């Protein structure tokens, strides 16, 4: 919203103050001011009122005229002018020789063979409107030669306030409201507005009007006749233009002017079209043409202003084309109303049509404004167009009153909330300048919230704190730390494990952490042959490609692998992310935090890659939990799982995750010649696993004896079983030292380490144990390699 300092200064005397500093303070105390502040009229000088005294056609040009103009000096000035609207006796804006218009300095110059000693200007050229159809037509009775800047409010400072920062402040959608803030910031009084006394029309007939819907909070209207003026006064048009609105005609400009001044949207109907005003919703949908000529679809939730049963305007949004003021309009009905904010907002969303009026209504306007705005309207109208006649009594249906709000609090509350000392007098005067009625008695404050702040904005005493502190200025706060007792912080187990997992994967295994989205990328997954992706769906995805929530991390990672082929012949990626596996009995999502790890390598032995991943997983459990894990082969459930070597990862008998090889169909779609393996761990289950503390064992002072045994087999499990069966406490370690795989000739060599803490072992006792192990295995047909 654009704001004019001239307009604000109508209501508060800022003389002697730095206006830019005030605007900056406004940004810090009230609402955000955008960066580019415009200095209107800054690059305009030497433009005066001139009268056209003679007009000659240019002998060779159809467009150009040779004018003599009177600028109040002794001699008339010769000017060549190309404007179509020149006429004898017309007063216009004239840039004298030496005048400044934007970048241009006016100098005498020949134009089509004639010297021109200056320039007649359009309103657009002097920057007070966008009208460049002809030169400015000055109808006011003014002395020739008067500088235009003395005549009109061309010099002004215009600043823009970010609309978003005004969402909770319906009162700030107007110059008067903003002026109130400036008054409080500048510590100057706010001038009251001048109004027409509407009670003098009480004897006139009332307008037939009735609110038939609770969505209309208040509806006020008044009828009048005899408007003689068609064009608004220049200063009014300048203000509207500077504030981003185009001048249309006097009446429309007046309603816009009032809206910018007081924040109350108004609408003028042709009284013939609104003989019995009814405000209501319809029980059926229909099409309705608004005054911009657009057909709009009205549904049963949209509040309408009607003439009986005929809709004439969309309440709070826009008038209808049929009830617009036209040439032969004799009597006007001025509407000033308040509607339910949420209903207006929702209607604008459904209609996808937001207007200056609806923007204000959405913020919960103060219903007290409706009649005040009419009184102000009539006051200004009569001042500008004295023949105007009010022909009805003020007709007002005040259906919904907001409750009055009075808040009490004590000084200690303010002190506690602010943490600084703000004295009672400052509190009282600040609140009073902002329109609150405040009193204090022995440190107890009682504050009555003004109606324009009581529609939703200020409801609790913490809101009052904001009023006091923002005007006090946050920059003026003395800042200090809180004094709180010390307590140790304890990291959440999940967070701690997460950090450690990331460190191990990055630092030790050189894997890369990637982020992704929580939904399935349907297209990307299809491209690698994954279609079965989950049934938890978004209701309002903007794009069908992201409609379902993933239930495992792996497809996302496989898509990432595919998009990174070419990065390197070998890489590993991981992410700790969320998945939703289904709904619980309360219909709530079952969410899990999962670690996904995927390794990719070109042309290697898949066994090595798989074992690398297996080792990574084992290290995670060993390092972070001092636990061993077991694997259990399972059948594939998803398209990307290779049926062989798919294993659940178990710890303490609980399934924590899964490890596997990518199914050849999916793998070939990612890369024809590469191996891809994956693992997924439930991080929350992992975090819940008890961390076994390290039990220290002093190293034995006696030498260990190592026995190496090589068996003809491809399976390690029976060997380990046989070693365990030996139940020998002297066995300190078992290590696989060689694996040779070639069908029948496969062999596994193990080293068994024997040691005792108290003595040196004899070769004989150790051999006895290893012989037993060998015998056990030979019984099962697993022979020592000869």
């Amino acid at each position, binding site marked *: 919203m654009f704001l004019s300092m001239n307009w604000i200064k109508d209501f508060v005397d800022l003389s002697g103050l730095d206006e830019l500093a005030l605007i900056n303070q406004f940004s*810090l105390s009230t609402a*955000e001011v955008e*960066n580019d502040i415009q200095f209107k009229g800054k690059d305009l000088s030497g433009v005066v009122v001139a009268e056209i005294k003679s007009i000659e056609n240019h002998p060779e040009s159809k467009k150009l005229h040779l004018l003599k103009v009177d600028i109040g000096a002794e001699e008339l000035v010769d000017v060549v002018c190309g404007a179509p609207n020149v006429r004898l006796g017309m007063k216009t804006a004239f840039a004298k020789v030496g005048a400044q218009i934007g970048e241009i300095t006016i100098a005498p110059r020949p134009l089509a063979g004639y010297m021109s000693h200056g320039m007649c200007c359009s309103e657009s050229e002097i920057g007070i409107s966008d009208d460049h159809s002809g030169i400015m037509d000055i109808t006011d009775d003014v002395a020739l030669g008067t500088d235009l800047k003395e005549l009109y409010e061309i010099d002004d400072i215009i600043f823009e306030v970010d609309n978003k920062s005004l969402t909770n402040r319906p009162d700030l959608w107007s110059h008067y409201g903003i002026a109130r803030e400036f008054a409080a910031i500048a510590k100057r009084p706010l001038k009251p507005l001048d109004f027409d006394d509407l009670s003098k029309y009480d004897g006139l007939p009332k307008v037939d009007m009735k609110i038939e819907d609770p969505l209309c909070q208040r509806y006020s209207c008044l009828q009048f006749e005899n408007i003689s003026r068609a064009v608004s006064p220049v200063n009014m048009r300048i203000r509207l233009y500077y504030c981003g609105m185009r001048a249309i005609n006097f009446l429309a400009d007046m309603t816009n002017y009032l809206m910018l001044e007081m924040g109350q949207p108004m609408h003028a109907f042709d009284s013939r079209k609104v003989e019995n005003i009814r405000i209501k919703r319809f029980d059926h949908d229909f099409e309705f043409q608004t005054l911009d000529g657009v057909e709009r679809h009205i549904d049963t939730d949209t509040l309408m202003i009607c003439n009986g049963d005929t809709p004439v305007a969309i309440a709070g949004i826009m008038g209808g084309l049929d009830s617009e003021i036209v040439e032969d309009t004799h009597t006007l009905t001025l509407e000033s109303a308040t509607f339910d904010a949420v209903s207006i907002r929702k209607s604008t969303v459904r209609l996808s049509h937001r207007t200056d009026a609806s923007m204000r209504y959405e913020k919960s306007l103060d219903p007290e404004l409706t009649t005040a705005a009419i009184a102000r309207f009539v006051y200004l109208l009569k001042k500008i167009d004295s023949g105007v006649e009010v022909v009805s009594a003020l007709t007002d249906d005040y259906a919904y009153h907001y409750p009055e709000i009075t808040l009490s609090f004590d000084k200690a509350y303010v002190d506690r909330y602010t*943490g600084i000392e703000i004295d009672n007098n400052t509190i009282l005067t600040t609140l009073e300048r902002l329109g609150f009625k405040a009193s204090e008695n022995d440190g107890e404050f009682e504050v009555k919230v003004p109606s324009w702040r009581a529609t939703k904005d200020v409801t609790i005493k913490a809101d009052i704190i904001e009023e006091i502190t*923002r005007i006090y200025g946050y920059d003026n706060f003395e800042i200090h730390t809180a004094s709180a007792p010390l307590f140790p*912080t304890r*990291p959440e187990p999940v*967070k701690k494990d997460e950090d450690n997992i990331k460190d191990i994967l990055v630092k030790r295994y050189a894997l*890369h952490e990637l982020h992704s989205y929580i939904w399935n990328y349907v297209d990307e997954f299809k491209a690698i042959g994954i279609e079965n992706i989950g049934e938890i769906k978004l209701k309002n*995805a903007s794009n069908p490609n992201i409609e379902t929530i993933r239930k495992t991390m792996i497809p996302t990672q496989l898509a990432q692998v595919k998009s990174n082929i070419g990065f390197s012949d070998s890489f590993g990626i991981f992410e700790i992310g969320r998945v939703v596996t289904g709904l619980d009995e309360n219909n709530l999502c079952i969410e899990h935090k999962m670690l996904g790890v995927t390794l990719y390598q070109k042309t290697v032995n898949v066994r090595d890659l798989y074992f690398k991943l297996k080792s990574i997983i084992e290290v995670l459990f060993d390092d972070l939990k001092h636990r061993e894990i077991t694997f259990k082969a399972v059948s594939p459930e998803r398209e990307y799982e290779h049926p062989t070597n798919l294993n659940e990862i178990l710890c303490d008998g609980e399934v924590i995750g899964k490890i596997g090889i990518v199914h050849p169909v999916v793998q070939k779609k990612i890369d024809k010649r590469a191996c891809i393996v994956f693992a997924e761990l439930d991080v929350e289950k992992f975090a819940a696993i008890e961390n076994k503390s390290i039990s220290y064992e002093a190293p034995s002072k006696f030498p260990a004896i190592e026995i190496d045994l090589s068996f003809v087999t491809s399976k390690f499990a029976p060997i380990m079983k046989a070693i365990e069966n030996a139940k020998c406490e002297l066995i300190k370690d078992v290590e696989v030292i060689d694996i040779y795989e070639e069908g029948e000739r496969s062999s596994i060599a193990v080293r068994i380490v024997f040691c005792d803490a108290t003595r040196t072992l004899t070769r004989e006792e150790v051999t006895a144990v290893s012989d037993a192990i060998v015998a056990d295995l030979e019984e099962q047909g697993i022979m020592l390699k000869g």
Partner: protein
Amino acid sequence: MKDFFSFDIFEEIGQSLAEALSDATDPQMIEDLRVMYLGKKGYITDLLKTMKTLSLDEKKTFGQMVNELKQASADSIAKRAEELKALEIQNEIDSMPEFDLTIPTKEDRGSYHPITLVQRECERIFTAMGFNVEDYPEVVTDYECFEAVNVPKDHPARDMQDTYYLENGELLKSQTSAAQNAILRKYGKQLKEQGMPIRAIFPGRCFRNEATDATHENTFFQMEGVMVDKNISISNLIYFMKTMLSEVFQRDIKVRLRPGFFPFVEPGFELDISCLICGGETGCPSCNHSGWLELCPCGMIHPEVLKEGGIDPEEYTGFAFGLGLTRLAMMKYGVKDIRDLNSGSLKALSQFTEDK
């Protein structure tokens, strides 16, 4: 007899040993010479064998001379052995080629996601200041995300176009404030019973239903922080934000508060920091010539939010803030396109190797 006493033989032996030693070039040759001269059948040992025929006096003199020769020979052998050892080391040194360090090396290195790096940095700072780090789900209920934090039913933020709703009625959290209620409840008991202030941060992924471009993402990270105690004030909030942000940016940051409207706080603020590029003095393109950067919303926790979290707003006050971790990461590393962060591109993301 005289022969025996002539010094010639001693001199000869000494000289031949000296010559042989100087010709010796490796430890084995030295050892051979030691055996040849001092061994059981060596020249010097042989000399002693010839003593049998001598008189006692002569024996005494002769023995003494042989011993002297023996000692001198042993010394020169040892000396030469030392020399050779030194020579050998010198040779080894000399034979070491000088390496060309300009030849690049390549060790596989992993990488952290930049969000992880920034998040850890923030967590470190907050933990040091006594804050607990919390974790929270991504799918939440309407109650958690909105109702519990005083966002009214008709607030525009709850409109379908801003929030991703799931078919079961839950939603993807649109703000980390969704965790506030749970955090207040989790720590409220300790606050009331032990006087332990609530100090917690909760970093997390948030979702907004909007079109993506270089500065907009539908999936991004925030970090919310709350502190609640008996006398937490606006003054504390400003102090705290200034201290914390100075830590985050590793320099003395100026902060400024402007009124900002957020339903979960009252008063609510927009917090600006002095521009990191121009320091706020002059204004520059990166701060749009204002000298300030809008960084994060914050405010005093709304009494309704405290109440909903089981905490009496008459007794306790608190502040809350929301830091955009994604924005911080972009500022810190100069990432220009927000979409790079979720792109999964190793070319982009493998650069973040160090956890600093």
